Structure formats: structure tokens, C-alpha cells
């Protein structure tokens, strides 16, 4: 049984939401890394990465997010992270400085707004 989940939805032209859930440790990231990178960084779009369902975020998961965000940025796209009320994940993102380089939001509307689609 998989310990990590990955779902995606194209919300509009040029806007994709990717929902990650479960444990993003070495095993979990190994299960989804290639698919996540492919979904997040293959096109110059706005990508909302929803981490509200992540129960454990290790540095290997952070590396995966940074790698994809850089690749997306180089293609002309943008990434935003949604954490909701997930305090541990938010604290982890802030501790390593990711929150300073990839926008992090607790509300989905604000995250979509940052990607230029606040009308959704």
C-alpha cells in the first residue's frame, strides 16, 4: 500500500493544482518524485502545490519541491505552496528558507491570486 498520494487537476488554462499527501520521507518521495517533477515542471504554467495533507515532510521532500520549482521557473512558470493549517509543514518550510523563495499560503484563494488566478 502506498504511503503517499499525488493527485493533479488542471484548474484552468495555464493553471495546475497538485495535491500531495502522506509521508514525504525517502520512501514516499521515491514513489512520487518522477511523476511530481513531470507534472510540476513540464510546462510554463502556474502550479499550486497543495501540502495540506502532508503528514511528514523531510529534507528529501524539500529537495524535490525546490528542484521542480527551479525547473518551472526556468521555463517561465511559477509555483506557490498551500499549507492550510499544517503547522509542522509550515514550520519546516520556514526553517529551511523555502518560504522566502517560493510563496507559501494558508488560504487557497490567496495562493491562486498569487498565480494570477484569483478569479477561480
Amino acid at each position, binding site marked *: 500500500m502506498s504511503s503517499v498520494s499525488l493527485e493533479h487537476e488542471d484548474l484552468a488554462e495555464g493553471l495546475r493544482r497538485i495535491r500531495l499527501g502522506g509521508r514525504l520521507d525517502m*520512501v514516499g518521495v521515491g514513489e512520487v518524485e518522477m511523476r511530481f517533477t513531470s507534472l510540476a515542471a513540464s510546462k510554463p504554467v502556474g502550479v499550486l502545490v497543495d501540502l495540506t495533507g502532508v503528514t511528514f515532510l523531510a*529534507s528529501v521532500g524539500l529537495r524535490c519541491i*525546490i528542484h521542480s520549482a*527551479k525547473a518551472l521557473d526556468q521555463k517561465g512558470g511559477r509555483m506557490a505552496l498551500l499549507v492550510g493549517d499544517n503547522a509542522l509543514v509550515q514550520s519546516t518550510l520556514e526553517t529551511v*528558507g523555502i518560504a522566502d523563495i517560493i510563496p507559501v499560503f494558508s488560504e487557497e484563494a490567496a495562493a491562486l491570486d498569487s498565480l494570477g488566478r484569483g478569479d477561480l
Partner: protein
Amino acid sequence: MTAPPVPGSLSLEIHADPLEFRRASSWLRQSGASLAVPDVQIDRLELCLNEVLANLVEHGGAATAQHPIQLLLEAVPLAGGCGAQLVVSDRGEPFDSGQAGVKAIPGSLDEASPGGLGLRLVKAFSDGLAYRVVDGRNELRIAMHWTPGS
């Protein structure tokens, strides 16, 4: 509101395998509960444990895979507070997490590098790190402190 920790210690041996790290996480949660260590401290300890074990797999060398990793969680009495410490003992390459420097926080996505994130997390989420070599084994003590009733 939290009660003071229950005196005692619990141990586990694992192999240097990522699947074993999940067993270690489960053990840590169960052991923390039985020693009355608060969830907040266990969350932080679990992240530290995962990062230390991941570092061992990536940088510990061949000896890491040949010898079990020993884990010990113990409640530690402190003057005016409560404490717990997680001891990770292994036979990998010597590495003192407490003395190792961490990279500066990147100012932009361009500057962000994937290395050093785990060490930064361990230093930020622990209340103390102590490293020594005992009988050829590395021994890293990761400390957590809290105030009873907080």
C-alpha cells in the same frame, strides 16, 4: 497541558534502510507516548531522527550497512523543566552534526541548493546536540526540553 515524562528508556535496533526508518518512526512515537513525551517534541524528534538516518545512508559509508543502528529514547530529569533525548549510535563515518556548519538561507530560487537542508532542520528542531565516539561507534544525542504543563 502535559504531564512530566515517565522515567525510563526504550531502545531499538534497525538496519540502514529507508523502509526501516519508518519502523523507527513508529517506535519513536510509541516510545514517546509511553514515556509521556509531548507530541510537539516527538514531531520534532521524528524529523531529526529521519534526517540523521538519511544522512547515514547517504554519507555513512559501507560500515553503516554492515552494522545495526542502535536507537535509545530516554526521559531526562531537568532542573525546572522536562527533557527527553534520543541517542543514535552507528558505525558509519564519523560526523559531528553539532559542529558542522549550515549553509546560509538562499535569497532566491536561483541560489537555492538541495544540500544541507537536513542538517539545518536537525539544528533548528533540536534543543541540543552532543556527539562523541564510544568503542568505535558514533553516538549522537538529540535533546528536547519543555516546561511541564505548557
